């Protein structure tokens, strides 16, 4: 199986391969225009969105555009808003809008210098001589030219692609089984790894007896890693049967956690002063003077991402370092984390970014948990065949990196006109950023601290809590609970007359 890495052939040395105009645009002599898309395609349509921006300025024909995911290379492919190669925050178009248009414009001007030439739908025409050529016709000649020093962008009134609905999708192969997700990566000598994880958060391995598993057909190795015990076999089913045959003993978790006890603790905390995320005016005075103010508490459970494709990853030790293939959402983070496991420099971790079968934030995380798990497996195993880590649905659900559980406590006061005069919100839960007990976690309070309503007195507080349940981004992050609580409360709080807030 071939994967295009997105790092196109160095055709400045070999112009016969066509024009590698820049990190994003590659024009082949066969007239295909291959665009490297720096954001992970996980169903949000970014292959189509970013391709639209480039194709617009390139004046390419939409049908000649193909896309490929960008490999890990933060210098070339970083998110301009975050300074790291990372897909998130609904920022793909926002951070790339000018960058992608400039990449398209540069590639066009590289091929076409004279002002008397026009380009439309992938055809380069010279009206005076009635000559025309395709991009492919010009690709080899253009590859020998020097880079244009300046580019000019189109006037938005001349857009033919941007803003148009119903462009054919560029994340193709999703109706005929041809699209390649991590789960679909195959190499001739590849092994599949299935891992036995501790049965509770905070539990650890006491003893493993792998003698039965090791005798099963196809099982090649059993290795102990920090996150559990991995069985490596020729196929998934053999690896899973190997895992089922392990005899395991676990140390009890360091602390007991239960949802009811946690909610009770959170509700108590919500009644105490927390870290101030916003403090306008004097909420205490206004609420204190209003005996009728309504107090409401909202409980939010942990939420699993449950992407349709359970977490998985492919990794191989190579002479140059490490090569990986998967739906990578945070290349900068994963590169650094995997490099640390192997004691290598981050740039020696080559990541090929594939399509992801959903993510909803799961594939980007501060700990790079599943790539690191696979790195530990391969390191412990010590051989150089590629290994595919496959989590079962049960693994995926139990492993966590949940949206944290929260309690929100809200109180507000209305004046005789029904306007909200004071608003107090206290949010209790784990800090996704891992903020310490003295620091407001901005992700816990987003959507609350920036409440857009004109209320003179606003107090938003937070308590960070700590336990062994792993938490992370979940799509739209803080607003999944803050916006919900705010709007439930606004509906619950009876207006005395009218509501103008």
């Amino acid at each position, binding site marked *: 199986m071939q994967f295009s890495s997105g790092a196109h052939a160095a055709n400045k040395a070999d112009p016969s391969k066509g024009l590698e105009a820049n990190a994003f645009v590659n024009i082949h002599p066969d007239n295909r225009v291959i665009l490297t898309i720096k954001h992970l395609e996980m*169903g949000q*349509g970014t292959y189509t969105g970013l391709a639209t921006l480039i194709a617009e300025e390139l004046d390419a024909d939409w049908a000649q555009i193909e896309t490929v995911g960008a490999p890990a290379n933060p210098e070339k492919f970083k998110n301009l808003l975050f300074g790291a190669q990372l897909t998130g925050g609904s920022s793909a178009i926002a951070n790339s809008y000018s960058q992608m248009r400039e990449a398209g414009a540069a590639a066009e001007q590289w091929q076409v210098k004279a002002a008397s030439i026009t380009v439309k739908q992938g055809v380069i025409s010279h009206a005076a001589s009635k000559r025309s050529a395709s991009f492919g016709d010009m690709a080899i000649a253009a590859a020998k030219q020097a880079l244009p020093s300046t580019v000019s962008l189109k006037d938005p009134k001349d857009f033919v692609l941007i803003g148009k609905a119903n462009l054919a999708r560029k*994340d193709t192969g999703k109706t005929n089984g041809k699209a390649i*997700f991590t*789960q679909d990566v195959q190499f001739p000598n590849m092994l599949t790894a299935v891992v036995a994880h501790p049965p509770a958060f905070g539990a650890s391995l006491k003893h493993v007896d792998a003698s039965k598993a090791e005798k099963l057909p196809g099982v090649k190795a059993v290795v102990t890693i920090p996150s559990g015990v991995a069985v490596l076999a020729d196929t998934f089913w053999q690896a899973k049967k190997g895992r089922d045959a392990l005899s395991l003993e676990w140390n009890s978790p360091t602390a007991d956690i239960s949802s009811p006890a946690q909610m009770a603790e959170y509700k108590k905390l919500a009644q105490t002063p927390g870290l101030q995320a916003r403090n306008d005016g004097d909420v205490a005075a206004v609420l204190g003077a209003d005996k009728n103010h309504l107090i409401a508490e909202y409980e939010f459970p942990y939420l699993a991402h449950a992407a*349709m*494709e*359970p977490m998985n990853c492919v990794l191989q030790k190579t002479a140059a370092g490490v090569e990986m293939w998967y739906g990578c959402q945070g290349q900068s983070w994963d590169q650094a984390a995997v490099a640390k496991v192997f004691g290598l420099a981050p740039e020696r971790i080559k990541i090929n970014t594939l399509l*992801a079968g959903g993510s909803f934030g799961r594939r980007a995380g501060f700990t790079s948990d599943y790539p690191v798990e696979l790195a530990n497996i391969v390191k412990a195993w010590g051989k150089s065949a590629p290994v595919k880590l496959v989590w079962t*649905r049960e693994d995926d659900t139990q492993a966590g990196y949940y949206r944290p559980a929260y309690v929100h406590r809200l109180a507000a006061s209305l004046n005789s006109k029904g306007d909200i005069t004071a608003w107090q919100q206290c949010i209790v839960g784990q800090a996704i950023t891992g903020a310490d007990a003295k620091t407001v976690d901005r992700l816990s309070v987003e959507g609350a601290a920036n409440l857009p309503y004109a209320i003179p007195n606003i107090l938003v507080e937070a308590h960070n809590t700590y336990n062994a349940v792993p938490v992370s981004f979940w799509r739209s992050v803080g607003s999944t609970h803050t916006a919900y609580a705010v709007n439930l409360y606004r509906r619950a709080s009876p207006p005395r007359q009218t509501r103008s807030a």
Partner: protein
Amino acid sequence: MAISVTINGEQRDLNVDPDTPLLWVIRDHLQLTGTKFGCGIAQCGACTVHMNGTPIRSCSMPVSAVAGQQITTIEAVSGPEAEALQAAWEELAVYQCGYCQSGQLMSAVNLLKSKPTPSDTDIDQFMSGNICRCATYVRIRAGIKHAAAQLATEVTL
């Protein structure tokens, strides 16, 4: 143990454990990766294939149980219903991440074969075993109706 299964019209003699689910035979042994693994317990529909033309969940069917049967996967599904549905899926941009869509299409082919003009309720009932975590259900419905309409005009022409 050798088991013989006909997959996409080709007889394959497989040397696998008889309890290996058909899904993993298709994916790991035959390297046909269009059929997806979502849950492994017949709860999501991502692994749907046809056995003698009927949709089954390949993750929960031991390969020994399909010996001698005709299995069709997304790579080889054909006929007017399949083609109309695949075209509708592209035209209406039905899919998002796409991971569930092989299974959605395999189920939808059977729906249109048994009910050429399904109502919303027919669609919801027939397709209820196919989960889409991206929640493309509204467009799946529209895609099925679009394909049904296309097929109806082809028939009357």
